[in-house]
């Protein structure tokens, strides 16, 4: 088991590094010149040369890679992701601010989505063709037909603009409040640490619409998977046999759920990895300064260190998420060997 975890980690780290290095070369192969963005209009030969030198772009590609990895001073191997060419602060510190916002958004959305999808999926699997099932079908047609930012805008229109029950879609906190001391950069947690319940409530309030938007979309695939998986288990031989053996309903229900769980967990993992950068549209609709936003800005600005840093961080997080889920699956299903 420990050997399995270590091996998975080692392989995963190599993969993450491989992806990052690939990205390193791909962005440098793009037909766009980051220097021209930095030196402004009508630059002199000299200022261009200077800028190139400052960014390290005058070195050979290979030397640039070695620098990035940390063979010449600080780099990936020494725990540094370099300095942003746009802001001048370290990439790591910027990710440390934007990542928690995204993670907080995604995790809450997943919790909400799973809490909705699993019970409804179970109920509709039990009664296919029932009222609830028809409702779910309608939702599937409806929700899938529009992109996520569109739903975000509709929710803002309805709940903020028309009904006025949601806060303005501007960031994580009421602009009038002072943010709690940044400890973890998770606003919810920091406000609790600071004992600032007004801030906590405001942060929760500001999460409602983005979470609603994201989970509104996440529920679709999760619900579908729950339904499929549940009806597969429900029509399985062993559930039938448990009924025939006169086991109690509760006990049969537990067996069913447990057996139906594996594909749902796998899907959750895949969606999670996807959402780390895929939540960008929702982040921008609600002006949340998250990782997705940061990544898009980095690409648009040709801020190479930031792009590389984001990719590496996302790969490493996905790695841990997948590993955690695989261990969970192995715990549920004895047929999965973890050696």
């Amino acid at each position: 088991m420990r050997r399995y975890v270590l091996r998975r980690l080692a392989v995963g780290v190599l993969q993450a590094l491989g992806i990052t290095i690939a990205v390193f070369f791909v962005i440098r192969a793009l037909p766009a010149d980051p220097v021209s963005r930095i030196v402004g209009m009508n630059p002199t030969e000299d200022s261009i040369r200077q800028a190139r030198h400052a960014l390290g772009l005058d070195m050979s590609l290979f030397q640039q890679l070695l620098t990035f990895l940390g063979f010449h001073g600080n780099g990936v191997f020494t725990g540094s992701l370099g300095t942003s060419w746009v802001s001048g602060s370290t990439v790591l510190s910027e990710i440390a601010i934007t990542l928690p916002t995204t993670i907080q958004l995604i995790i809450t959305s997943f919790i909400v989505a799973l809490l909705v999808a699993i019970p409804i999926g179970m109920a509709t699997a039990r009664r296919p063709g029932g009222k609830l099932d028809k409702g779910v079908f309608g939702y599937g047609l409806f929700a899938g037909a529009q992109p996520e930012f569109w739903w975000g805008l509709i929710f803002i229109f309805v709940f903020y603009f028309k009904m006025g029950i949601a806060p303005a879609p501007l960031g994580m906190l009421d602009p009038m409040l002072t943010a709690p001391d940044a400890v973890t950069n998770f606003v919810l947690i920091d406000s609790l640490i600071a004992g600032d319940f007004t801030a906590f409530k405001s942060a929760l309030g500001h999460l409602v619409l983005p979470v609603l938007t994201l989970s509104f979309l996440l529920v679709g695939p999760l619900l579908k998977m729950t339904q499929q998986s549940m009806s597969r288990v429900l029509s399985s031989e062993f559930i039938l046999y448990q009924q025939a053996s006169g086991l109690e309903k509760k006990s049969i229900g537990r067996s069913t759920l447990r057996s139906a769980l594996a594909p749902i967990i796998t899907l959750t993992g895949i969606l999670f990895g996807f959402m780390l950068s895929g939540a960008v549209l929702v982040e921008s609709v609600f002006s949340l300064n998250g990782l997705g936003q940061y990544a898009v800005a980095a690409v648009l600005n040709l801020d190479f260190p930031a792009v590389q840093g984001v990719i590496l961080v996302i790969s490493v997080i996905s790695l841990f998420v997948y590993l955690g889920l695989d261990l969970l699956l192995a715990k549920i299903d004895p047929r999965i060997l973890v050696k």
Partner: protein
Amino acid sequence: MTPSEALLSTRGLTVKYPYGDVQNVVIDELDLDLYPGQIVGLLGESGSGKSSLALALMGLARHPGVVSGEVNFRGKNLLKMDDEELRQIRGNSIGLITQKPRQALDPLVNVGKQISRVYRAHSHASKADAQVRAIELLRSVGINDAERRVNAFPHELSGGMAQRALISMALSVEPDLLIADEPTSGLDVTIQAQFLDRMWERARDANIAVLIVTQDLGIVANYCDRIVIMEDGKIIEDRITTEFFADPHTAYGKKLILASGAGTKSSNADVAITTTPEILRVTDLRKTFEVEGGKRLQAVSKASFQIHKGRSLGLVGESGSGKTTVGRLILRLADPDSGEVWFKGERIDSISPKEFRKYRSKIQAVFQDPFDSLNPRWPIERVIREPLDLHTEMSKAEKGARVRELVSLVGLTDDILPLRPGSLSAGQQQRVSLARALATEPEFLILDEPTSALPPAARADMILLLKSLQERLDLCFIFISHDLSTVRELCHDIAVMYLSEIVEMGTSEQVFSAPSHPYTRALLDSVLFHDPSSRRVDRTVKAELEGEIPSPVDLPAGCYLAARCPMAEQRCRDDHQALIEIGPSRSVRCWKSVEASK
């Protein structure tokens, strides 16, 4: 017996499966009465609704089916009971053994927990007591090492063991009604016999009503008092067993009896020594497979036999005994570790696959699962024509004529030619496989369980067909099967295999009338002949084996049967046995049998 004495009686029992907006009716207004102490055999083609009926008797249907009508158990309608009352009856007063033992167990929970859950659902036992009980139960059905096995997960058990665990669960609560859905379909014949004997005794002693769903007329003839035949969700024949065998009323029943009637006599019992030329000779064939943990599994060892023109060899033995592997070695689908295969005086085991291709048209095969071996996208015409394209120089017209000739040879009509395999029944598919195998007029055929996957009526038809082809075409073949009555009908010679070795060989007549090896005797004794006047349960002395078949990975040093053989002595455990000739074309691998024959 009158309906008022019935333990369970259904009136207007109906099971429907919603299929979108359509209702698929699988049990149609069915009335059935079951009485205490009576064993009822339920027969019917696959899809006729047998399993649905078995479940509906407990008020259950496969998800998302719906049961309606009346199921009166001791006069009370199960379908109107509340959940708790129903729950107390299921698994307690009515026990169920399902067709697929391994699938009936929750793959995520260990066996002990599952047994104790059922036990605790019907008693107030504590968890610890239930665990002890689970161990007892496993031990009582002959699972050795029960303390360890109780922690095993279903995928770690063999099908046979899972079946035993289920049987132990069903019988442990002393039900009044036992419903068994093909309880022995996955079991080997000697183990099937053990189980059925035990069930029969229990039903007699405790006055249990039993409904046993089966495809095997032998089980009905040997163990059932009454036979019920279903077709399309309805009962078409419901008779006392002996009366049914004497005079079946329905066409379906007549067909079953007709096909099995021959089962007691063999027309191939003649001539032991043959003068026709030798077609195939196999010497000292050996094949092992590497298995997990670097060990080797011995699939076939020291297999030697020859087959002469116009004769057929039956290869019998329980599952895993190596029958299929022998066939695959001859067909060059696997390479032997050692040994030789000679076809008409030419050695074919060591030639290259390319060289072997020219023998392909001479050596053909038919396998167990007809659908697997037919290309689903090809029309039947092309399926049968393929070997002609590959191996002959015929013109288009000649091929067309030959295909039609073959189709009629196997009892099919031309109108199936444009169809695809998927739209044929299993029986028709198997006939197509046979037609394809016969296309190039092979001199030698390997038939590997060609009848086993077929429903009873189709199986009977197939046997009749093979028999007539054998006479008309003078076929020479190996027939692999675990079904001894079929082998007896079709084969001149028999080789009995046990755990990779041939333990006895002789003509059908010799082996069936005077089996010599203890394993052959037990095997023959477990054959359930389709004749209610000579039932196994009426026989006083039975040749029986104990316990389970050992693993082919860790084979014992001495005789492979020693652990199960009732005659075993120390010498058996010490010395490996050799196949010794005890008469013309007759040999046996057991020193005691050899001595007894002198």
